[in-house]
């Protein structure tokens, strides 16, 4: 299917986005060189160009999400995985999951963790973007290369290095803290307590996500016209006023989109936590939603319950990101 569609529009099959918004611009272009043959007919090209993206989405999402919805209303365990017919149980899975205090503890922990990480990432990213704007080209290039290297670091390798840094026995962090006089930190086990565990996890996630935010925001900042800022300076605006009243409002679309993406990503965080837990941690007190679902489904073979929680997470993601999506749509209209 997607092959046929791709063959139909070979040149544009990849970047469906710009192609889709393109016709609006060409349609209103007053002097198109090739004379437009049938001006009156509603243009079909935009819809045609949307086809590959829609087909890809349906092919990738429809089956798994559909299966998930079906499984969430079935008693689906290891027996069913090995061929027993699943039994329809209505909303039993949801009732069972939602009346379990463990789920709500995980939800609260995940939402707080997600918000703290998303905000922290955007604040640090914005600071770095402003820094890149202020410094000279060689410094900026160095900074950008460093950010790209951090961004390009494979996640498992990154987490492993952090695990070594914070190792209670051989880690550099404890060694340094002892050297600067905190003797109590010798042999301190960072991953044993939920608070310090999440402190380490936050460092890893922020470190890995900041480059994307910083580079996106920097790209946004470069397109702010210099004349506007010059005018502001002539009117006597301070640096802080320029930031709050000119720069930030002008990059607001980019800012809100990266914040939205960070929220979605940080709510779905899984592998970093799992890898840190492997180094020894109180597992049930450090599970986030992704880890909770994995444990329920893959370790405890309660696939029905895991499907029910997954659907809840989907709803939660939509709920958390809805204000941003709506404001984006309003601005576009």
């Amino acid at each position, binding site marked *: 299917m997607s092959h046929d569609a791709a063959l139909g529009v070979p040149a544009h099959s990849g970047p469906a986005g710009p192609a889709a918004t393109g016709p609006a611009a060409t349609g209103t272009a007053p002097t198109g060189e090739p004379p437009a043959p049938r001006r009156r007919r509603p243009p079909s090209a935009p819809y045609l160009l949307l086809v590959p993206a829609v087909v890809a989405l349906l092919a*990738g999402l429809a089956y798994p999400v559909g299966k998930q919805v079906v499984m969430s209303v079935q008693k689906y365990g*290891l027996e069913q995985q090995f061929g027993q017919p699943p039994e329809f149980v209505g909303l039993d899975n949801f009732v069972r999951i939602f009346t379990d205090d463990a789920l709500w503890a995980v939800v609260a922990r995940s939402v707080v963790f997600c918000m703290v990480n998303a905000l922290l990432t955007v604040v640090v990213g914005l600071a770095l973007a402003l820094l890149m704007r202020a410094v000279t080209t060689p410094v900026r290039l160095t900074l950008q290369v460093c950010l790209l290297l951090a961004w390009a670091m494979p996640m498992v390798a990154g987490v492993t290095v952090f695990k070594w840094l914070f190792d209670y026995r051989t880690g550099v962090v404890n060694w340094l803290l002892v050297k600067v006089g905190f003797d109590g930190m010798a042999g301190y086990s960072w991953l044993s307590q939920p608070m310090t565990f999440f402190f380490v996890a936050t460092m890893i996630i922020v470190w890995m996500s900041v480059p994307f935010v910083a580079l996106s925001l920097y790209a946004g900042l470069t397109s702010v016209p210099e004349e506007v800022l010059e005018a502001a300076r002539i009117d006597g605006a301070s640096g802080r006023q320029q930031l709050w009243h000119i720069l930030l409002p002008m990059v607001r679309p*980019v800012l809100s989109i990266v914040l939205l993406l960070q929220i979605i990503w940080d709510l*779905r965080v899984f592998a970093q936590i799992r890898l840190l837990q492997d180094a*020894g941690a*109180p597992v049930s007190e450090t599970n986030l939603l992704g880890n909770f679902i994995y444990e329920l489904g893959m370790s405890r073979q309660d696939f029905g319950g895991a499907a029910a929680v997954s659907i809840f997470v989907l709803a939660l993601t939509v709920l958390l990101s809805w204000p941003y999506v709506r404001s984006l749509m309003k601005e576009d209209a």
Partner: protein
Amino acid sequence: MKMLRFAALGVAATLALTACSSSDTPSDDATTAGGEKTAEAAEITLWLAGGDTNDELRQYLKDTFAAENPGSTLTIEEVAWPDLVTKLTTALPDEANTPDVVEIGNTQSPTFTTVGAFRDLTPIYDELGGDKLLQSFVDVGSVDGKNYALPYYFGSRYMFYRKDIWTAAGLEVPKTLSEFSESVAKLKTDTQSGFAMGGQDWRNGISWVFANGGELATVDGTTWTSTLSDPKTIEGLTQWQEVYRTASNLPSTERDVAYWDFLNDGTDGSAPAAATIMAPGWARWSIGDITTNDAGDEVRDGMADDTTFDIFALPGVDGGIAPVFAGGSNIAVSAKSQHPELAENLLRIIFSEEYQTKLGGAGLGPGNSDFVSSLGDDKFATTMIETAAASKLTPAAPGWAAIEGAFVYEELFQKIADGGDVAALATEYDAKLTPMLNGGAAG
């Protein structure tokens, strides 16, 4: 406007990426044979758990299988222990991707045998060894009198210690469990554990429960009950708490620790981090002075210097030997295997005298009791056989693999290690564990 379009494009692209990654199905890169149904020439796959089966044994299996089944080949894939249950759950039901023969932890067997994941091996049971096979392992692999999983190898654990440190402190090999606790408590300093043990390490910790005559769970017919609140179990857990708190410097969250590193001298000849550890027999090869093997790699000499390194079996409460956790695994054929005849041929090789003897030579207890003597007769072999004879299995309950997967005992032991009230924790976790033992999803 321009920026908004850029942003919209970004959303579209990233959401598409998000979608792809979240609908990611577990991708098992299993390379099973194609569609040919002929039993003569095919490729079958054996999944081995962890690295216990060494390269020499693997090569022997491949060569022998190819020689005895002309045209067919055996592919061996290694699965890490923590991933095993997950991978089996997704691969076994899928006839296009299932491994043909799998190794599985002895106590994980019931989880799969009870749902029909394995082929009935009763017809060839006698041919593969019958009554000679280790019966406790045969039992956990059977359902309703039919054999689905058979013993592959057994192991046990005992104590490795620094004889030089113990002797310098004027201590002798302990005769009773309480003598052991006192000795290791004396050996603890700020930089050295008298006995290195992680707080979540329940697989070593349950030895104290077993030694006091306690059980983790009992079965009545088919209904399992968690028995942590039994006075004997509580006594064992309390003694373990005492040992952890007085003798170990390890964090309470540590579980699968490479304890053997603690027994070797540190870098630049500094003192070792522990005077005593508990580990499976093969840990010997990670302990000792550094030497160079035939290939020129730096390796440990396997405790050649017996004035520095030595072993003993964990003593029981009133002397003798304490029961320890019986390690080991079973082997089974997938019910969905496309080449069951070839898979059974592989089992015939595994249960042959030659391979069983080779297992013993590699320090793994062979599944057939006739060949246990192949382990040898040095102190390592005799201690292993002694401790294995006194060892105990964890409950063979249908929900056992789920309990391991959810790290329930790890948490319980951590809370005990942190100084929690043993009786209260036992009651709390009994309530949590009983439904899980019986396979009840999400207690």
